[in-house]
């Protein structure tokens, strides 16, 4: 794996996120930016996929259960060659566009329509069950928010994944500590996360969700998991990469205005240049 390339791609993913949300005039930058490194690792390092053949048999699948952060996934997919980046950044959330406000299964490579929190994780479990039935080697990666863990459905899905020994299912929790109304700890406590999954019959590990080597190691280990599903608790910063969005609940679901957009792009372009 090429750490420098991955870190650079992650910045490009962030640039795509900001471009698209600014153009759209609405969207969710905070949770998209916090999951940008994880998503980059999945699409450029870990997953067995073919953008030219999105329906390839035996492929790995990534499901953004925290669907509001879909722009992170779409940006990574565009850069990986699934569709032109300009079509995504230019038409996201526009009428008649295939790039909807939340992930849409009609786009080749998007495996599940999401947006209602919790449901993507359930469907991911079903896909893992199907792969077991078919002896399909593909792994299912589900990206969840920490606020999303408050949904009861998440724990129904977690229980059944352990019961059916879905060691081909990997949950990645984007643990940025924030949701819409503020800190998880103020709205509805979700900690401890790893221990909860463990008590539901999962293996878990905690990593720095912005450290590409740690992400690579954890995802590689998770792919080798035997007998139990694996949960990766990725400690992240909401808004990561755009200084004024970092750790601000207010940037959950708001587009930058022109001035903020220019500042964000300046920061990201500088970060990209520094990685050359």
């Amino acid at each position: 794996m090429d750490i420098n390339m991955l870190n650079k791609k992650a910045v490009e993913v962030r640039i795509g996120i900001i471009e698209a949300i600014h153009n759209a005039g609405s969207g969710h930058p905070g949770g998209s930016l916090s999951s940008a490194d994880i998503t980059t690792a999945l699409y450029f390092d870990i997953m067995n996929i073919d953008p030219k053949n999105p329906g390839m048999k035996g492929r790995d699948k990534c499901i953004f259960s925290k669907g509001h952060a879909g722009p992170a996934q779409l940006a990574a997919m565009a850069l990986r060659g699934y569709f032109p980046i300009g079509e995504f950044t230019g038409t996201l959330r526009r009428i008649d566009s295939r790039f909807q406000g939340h992930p849409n299964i009609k786009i080749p490579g998007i495996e599940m329509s999401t947006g209602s929190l919790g449901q993507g994780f359930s469907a991911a479990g079903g896909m893992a069950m199907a792969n077991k039935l078919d002896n399909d080697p593909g792994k299912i990666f589900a990206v969840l928010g920490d606020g999303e863990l408050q949904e009861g459905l998440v724990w129904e899905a977690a229980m059944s994944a352990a019961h059916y020994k879905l060691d081909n299912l990997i949950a990645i929790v984007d643990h940025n500590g924030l949701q819409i109304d503020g800190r998880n700890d103020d709205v509805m406590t979700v900690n401890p996360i790893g221990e909860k999954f463990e008590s539901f019959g999962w293996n878990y590990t905690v990593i720095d969700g912005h450290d590409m080597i740690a992400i690579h190691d954890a995802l590689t280990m998770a792919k080798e998991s035997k007998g139990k599903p694996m949960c990766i608790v990725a400690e992240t910063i909401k808004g990561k990469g755009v200084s004024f969005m970092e750790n601000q609940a207010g940037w959950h679901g708001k587009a930058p205005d022109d001035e903020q957009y220019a500042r964000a792009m300046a920061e990201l372009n500088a970060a990209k240049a520094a990685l050359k």
Partner: protein
Amino acid sequence: MADKIATRQAYGEALVEIGKNNSNLVVMDADLSGSTKTSMFAKEFPERFFNMGIAEQNMYGAAAGLAISGKVVCASTFAIFAACKSFEIIRNSIGYTGANVKICASHAGITVGEDGASHQTFEDIALMRTIPGMTVVNPSDATATKKLLKQIVEMEGPCYFRIGRAAVPVFYSEDDEITLGKGKLIKEGSDVTIIATGIMVNEAYEAAGVLETEGISVRLIDIHTIKPIDSGIVIKAARETGAIVTAEEHSVIGGLGDAVAQVVVKNAPCPVAMVGQQDTFGESGKPDDLKKKYHMTSEDIIEAVRNIVRER
């Protein structure tokens, strides 16, 4: 009719006003308090506000428990997570028990806009209408929202209160009488009746103005209380004008149109045309563009009225 205010904004303000006099009122939300505007109540009465996190089903289950223990509860989230996601809990724990819970659901309909089909709800009125004992209310503007919320909090029993995201014209004045369960006659007319609910009332009012200039005399009725529906005003309209066009920001299946049609078919059969979401999902876009694309504007009401009058 100059100002534009979202009905959710009026809802937030009304909760605070009601909370001042009614210490029994408890408000709940599911991590959307800034959007549903329950944050205003939370700020004023923190001890009577519960943020239940992103766990709508538990919120409605707990709301039932609070209500059965004597509280009057307004529990808010987006319509898709209230009526649709939590349906069975609302049906059994709130409907079947008759619990005094007001399901105050915001962001209903196509005007949710950019978030797209996963969030745009066209099924909520239909679902809620099927629950025995559930009162279903869809106010048309900020004034009606405030007046009706006061009445549903005073009324005993479950209620679904539908409010929207987008700023809409303030249609009514303070002096307008708006009574729960009673259709509001906005304009007399003899050729045809438009029966509208929610934000479509304003679209219908604009349509009626245009149609009058074409020589079509239009009666206009706001049915804010869809269940129990004011059948008297509907039957009278059917008998006296002989044709009805309904307009709602909801599926034409199971909503206002069906409720009106049931009354008409049983009592005074006449042609009924329905303006609303035509059995399809929505998509991302600007609310006004989506209203056009999915045929929920004054233009569409005008078209429907012209057709029904021509064919009669």
